[in-house]
């Protein structure tokens, strides 16, 4: 069971106060915000997320990581489970080259279950209609 104050932050969309404790999230620079009930994850451009400097491409693993984290935060925000949700699996599809700039991700429930949910995540940069990657993930609800 999470402390009530953490729920307060998550309910209010103040993820940064909760995620500031997680070293990996800080290292990656992930930020999360909510507008109209939809969580958007942001991965600001940084040199250490590059996968191929010559090809001007971000590392595929960082896109997968952003999408996985965005799906988990979406579950947390929308269902306030008793425990932290956990990823069961994720399939990432790489659609276009992700160049060296800020990257965003949004997740939606395809099925919202009591124990297990399925979410579709889309990852984009300048143009939301030209996703750089997409993912399907099963999440064990807390």
């Amino acid at each position, binding site marked *: 069971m999470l402390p009530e104050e953490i729920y307060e932050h998550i309910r209010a969309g103040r993820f940064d106060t909760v995620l500031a404790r997680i070293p990996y999230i800080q290292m990656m620079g992930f930020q999360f915000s909510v507008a109209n009930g939809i969580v958007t994850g942001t991965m600001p451009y940084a040199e250490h997320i590059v996968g191929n400097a010559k090809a001007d491409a971000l590392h595929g693993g*960082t896109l997968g990581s952003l999408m996985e984290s965005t799906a988990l935060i979406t579950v947390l925000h929308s269902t306030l489970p008793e425990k932290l949700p956990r990823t069961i699996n994720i399939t990432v599809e790489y659609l276009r080259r992700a160049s060296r700039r800020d990257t965003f991700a949004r997740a939606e429930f395809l099925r919202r279950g009591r124990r297990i949910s399925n979410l579709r995540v889309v990852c984009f940069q300048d143009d939301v209609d030209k996703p750089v990657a997409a993912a399907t993930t099963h999440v064990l609800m807390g």
Partner: protein
Amino acid sequence: MRLQPRFVDAETKQRVRAQIERYFFGGVPHNRAIGLELVDFSAEFFHTRVPFAEHLVGDVERGVMHGGVITAMMDATGGGAVMLAAGEYMRVVTLDLRIDYVRAAEPRRTMHGRASCYRVAHDVAFVRGAAFHADEHGNLEVQIAQATGVFALMRSASAGRIIGAPEPAGTDSGDAT
């Protein structure tokens, strides 16, 4: 017929190892950021590891690394397996990668990644692998995740540089993500 990479002698393998470490690890900023290391390789497999590090922790209570580290590690490991199976230094691009988290990682332990490419076609290659905690010999002790991936081969960018071939003066090796 494609040419197989040959690591017939220790000297050749040492040279290939140095090339892989220089371009595939040192030359890829995010591989450096997670502390990815090369353990072993052949034409049949690619084996890497990420030693436990505080800045990679995703679960503070349990002291285990974030799942994103496994995704990045298996992406790089799968790409390495493809390159070695193809036998040429070339750009390898991930088309899709599935990660099944079969059990929780154990606190503060090194994560190993091992992948093999079981089919190389002209344009694409198919990979399966695992993330695991290893025993002292580097063999699988506890499996943490299963990985399945499909990669695209950028053969036009390979310039026919056969892995393990004697290095002509003044050339450098390929790049990969």
